[in-house]
């Protein structure tokens, strides 16, 4: 059952007021490359509609939410006649899903790599020697202590732990 949750809607509007400008014209869904290829399984207009209605169960609690199919190509954002910032709103919703601990594994893996090393892709031995052969300098990345401290502050570490369970 879909439960209307105005708290969620108001949270989204507070974060991004442009949500309330949407008049459901379908410019976004008509222009979306993923909506076309998934035959509407992913539909940016519907996600915005659900956000307007505050359908928390469908948006946040449902596993495998279609929202993850957004390719972040930002076409909808450029096309929207009302300048609704769809991608920003989707980001907020995805952040909420993450807090809830349900994100596709690939995001967790990237998050874990950042936690471990501060970078998304650690330098392998093979790459280091390839860099040398190409005459490229050694890269000194961020001190991991600093990054760990920051990620503790933003509560990122806990959220990754929750998601990995």
């Amino acid at each position, binding site marked *: 059952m879909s439960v209307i949750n105005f708290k969620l809607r108001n949270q989204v509007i507070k974060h991004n007021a442009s949500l309330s*400008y949407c008049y*459901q*014209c*379908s*410019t976004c869904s*008509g222009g979306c490359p993923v*909506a076309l290829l998934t035959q*509407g399984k992913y539909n940016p207009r519907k996600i915005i509609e659900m956000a307007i209605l505050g359908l928390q169960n469908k948006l946040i609690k449902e596993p495998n939410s279609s929202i993850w199919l957004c390719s972040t190509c930002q076409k909808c954002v450029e*096309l929207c006649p*009302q300048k609704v910032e769809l991608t920003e709103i989707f980001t907020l919703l995805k952040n909420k899903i993450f807090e809830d601990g349900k994100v596709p594994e690939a995001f967790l893996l990237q998050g874990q790599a950042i936690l471990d090393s501060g970078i998304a892709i650690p330098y392998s031995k093979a790459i280091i020697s390839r860099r040398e052969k190409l005459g490229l300098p050694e890269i000194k990345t961020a001190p991991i202590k600093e990054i760990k401290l920051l990620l503790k502050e933003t509560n990122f570490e806990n959220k990754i732990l929750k998601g990995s369970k």
Partner: protein
Amino acid sequence: MEEASKRALVIGGGIAGIQASLDLADMGIHVDLIEKKPCIGGKMAQLDKTFPTNDCSICILAPKLSECYRNLNITLYSYSEVQKVEGIVGNFSVEILKHARYVKEDLCINCGLCVEKCPMRVEDEFDRQLRKRRAIYMYYLQGVPAIMTIDKKNCLWFTKEACRICEKNCEKEAIDFNQKDELIKINNIGSIIVATGYNLIEDIDNDILKNYGYQKYRNVVTALEFERMLSASGPQEGHIKRISDGEEPKKIAYLQCIGSRTDRGAKYCSSICCMYTTKEAMIAHEHDNELESYIFYIDMRAGGKGFQSFLRRGEAEYDIKYIKSKIAEISIDKNESPIIVYEDLDTSEIKKLKVDIVVLATCIIPPEGIVKLAEVIGFELDDYNFIKTPPFSPVKTSRDGIFTCGCVHEPMDIPRSVAEGSSAAARAAEIIRGG
């Protein structure tokens, strides 16, 4: 002349200005009617039919045009613009710049010999660039006054000091290359009506139309262009053909709210498009009753008298499919047929539709030159640069003695333009007669 016989000035010779002029003339008030273009008639003259009755537009308009020309109470200044307005309500003086036509108005009989011989081919503004005209030309077939005009920008005599072939061929010796622009001063004007009409968004800004491939894909046209394509006197002589290959279309899609109701263009509703797309689809269907029509809309705005039943007739009798969906962009296939991808909001399905022609219902915008005119006359404009009027006095501008009617006031259809024309005439007469 008696002190009481104040005149009225009407700026703009479209249907609103024409109606105002005729009403004032019928009241016995002398009207000076100023038109920027070579002929009066305005946008209505470019239309094939009018909604919701689907009457022939020029058939309704033409008698009014000739009445304006014939009526002894109306002095028509075509190809003219207002330069200066002085004085106060009840007693304005106006300076008018009358552009030289290089054709003697009293001698030209509109026989067309000059046009036949003119070697220049230039884009025809009246036919929305869908046809070529000559450098000497009649603005449009039924135009009033029925006098030729030489377009100085393109005439070989004015650009290269050559040719003058029109002069040699004119049996009436009506060509006059020495004509000069004239400054005419009119005094004793009691009130002024501003009825300078509108432009369309494609006239100024094609950025908005870029996603729809306008001017890139030949089978994507605007509604006014399509109106010319439908018209018997238009570039295709009343046969609807694709511009790319001359084929008769089997499917036409009409896309509404192009440039209107958007933060990226005009923030207001263009007001007439919901109805005229249905009208155009009906007329197209009358040309070929196997034609399929698709109207893509955000909301159907059918607020006028008889409008809702007009839409119902479109659906029932003309096989028009109304699809609730705003179109994001257009691509084309190898035959230059437009392809539309859209979400059908009735079913939430993402669909693809290939059509032969796409008609863009482009937005009405304030007319070119309105900001300058507002300065010259001294009235205020609203946030969108239409003329500002108080809600309970809808034809009155912010300056006493200055009234307005038609689309320069806000986007509106022909019946309302006519009603406002009469309304503005009554208010203008009040000042002149009321003393």
